[in-house]
């Protein structure tokens, strides 16, 4: 294997390092976090789909299957129930190793049914991508250490790639002038209308007022955000990861302040994967008892 590729792979998968007890506990708690969101989102989407009437914009599998058969009946809720049941079964590793793959397909279907009304959201992409990594990791690998190393490494790979890909999209879509502060004015006005429409009122906060008053400040805000996206793939290297993810968290906070877009699931997940929390669990010997360790091993 090419030495540079091997170096990136070693940073992603921490190849050869033994899985500590704290890490095993963190791994399972992280899986609980992700699967909790999978279940929550599948019900949220299922309930919302009840009010859908027609497909406005087909996404994903909806390009090939007319998902309107899911409208006007309780099928979205039944699907949410099936996703919930299968997710719980897969979480406890009951049965075969491809249940998360089935959950992924059903979850995708629930997503494209719910989001067939014209909106192309990205708020659930990180949860969806991580479910994908769990599905692939558990299908292809045996043993807690291999599975977790693959799941975590591939997740970091795709998160980093996603941010840098977003930066490249901006360069292709607009060019080097993307960071012109006047563009931020137009987006802030757009998001302000969204808030006005949703809440019935809207008034700009201090950062939005600053950006409206000084175009240089608006340009600087966009520039910092863009540079942060560019360096996304640096999280592939373990030594840069906490710094890159801290910068990305700052960027999300900035987007929330300027454009009123919240990223709850994104932010929580980034906080969980950006820093080596397992070291704290190891230091405090949390989850170190043999009985807990044995049980975690059995469902790893």
């Amino acid at each position: 294997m090419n030495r540079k590729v091997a170096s990136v792979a070693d940073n992603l998968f921490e190849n050869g390092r033994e899985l500590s007890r704290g890490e095993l506990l963190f791994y399972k708690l992280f899986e609980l976090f992700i699967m909790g969101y999978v279940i929550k989102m599948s019900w949220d989407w299922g309930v919302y789909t009840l009010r859908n009437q027609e497909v406005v914009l087909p996404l994903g599998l909806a390009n090939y299957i007319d998902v309107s058969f899911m409208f006007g009946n309780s099928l979205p809720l039944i699907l949410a129930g099936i996703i919930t049941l299968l997710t719980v079964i897969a979480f406890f590793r009951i049965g075969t190793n491809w249940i998360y793959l089935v959950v992924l397909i059903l979850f995708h279907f629930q997503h494209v049914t719910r989001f067939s009304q014209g909106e192309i959201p990205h708020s659930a992409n990180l949860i969806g991508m991580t479910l994908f990594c769990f599905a692939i990791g558990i299908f292809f690998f045996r043993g807690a250490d291999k599975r977790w190393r693959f799941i975590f490494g591939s997740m970091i790979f795709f998160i980093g790639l996603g941010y840098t890909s977003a930066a490249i999209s901006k360069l292709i879509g607009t060019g080097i002038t993307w960071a012109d502060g006047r563009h931020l004015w137009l987006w802030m006005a757009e998001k302000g209308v969204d808030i006005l429409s949703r809440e019935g009122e809207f008034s700009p906060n201090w950062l939005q007022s600053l950006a409206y008053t000084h175009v240089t400040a608006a340009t600087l805000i966009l520039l910092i955000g863009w540079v942060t996206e560019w360096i996304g793939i640096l999280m592939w290297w373990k030594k840069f990861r906490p710094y890159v993810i801290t910068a990305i968290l700052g960027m999300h906070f900035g987007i929330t302040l300027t454009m009123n877009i919240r990223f709850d699931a994104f932010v929580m997940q980034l906080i969980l994967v950006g820093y080596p929390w397992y070291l704290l669990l190891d230091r405090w010997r949390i989850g170190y008892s043999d009985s807990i360790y044995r049980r975690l091993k059995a469902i790893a």
Partner: protein
Amino acid sequence: MDSPNHFRYRATRIILVILFIYGVLVATHEGEFWPFSIYPMFSQAGNPWTRAMVTDVTDEQPDGIWEITKLEDARGVQVPVGKYGVDQIDFSNFVSKTDHWTPARKKALITMFGAENIEGRIWMVMKVTGRMTDSEEVEVVAIPFLKLRADTVLTNPFLPQEEYLRGGRHE
């Protein structure tokens, strides 16, 4: 049992295969095959946009309700769509991306808010458009688009009917 090197090789190979599938799916589906995406949001800067909002025009003079105004001068009292469980982005997209306002599409709009919530009131669905003017200022305009009662939806008689047949963009 995998050796560390074999594991690294296998894991890398799997990721590269996924990356290939990822690339093929997003390349053939306009950048989106959830959860795969090229994350194109906000990639095209400076473009005009169209959103939607609702105002209650029950107490307005009927002759002025179809007038196109600046956003701050829009007729009626703002209806917060979130109060009715409606996702405002969905709603905006539904209004701005519908190309052909068939009777079913119009009825879907009433269903979205619930006829019982509109009962006895007159609501105006407005398209709201934003653009950068030649003098580099943001101009936001409210266009009365559809008048909603609990059982009927009327189009704006002062707009060209093509707006309701091919999805006029106001851009």
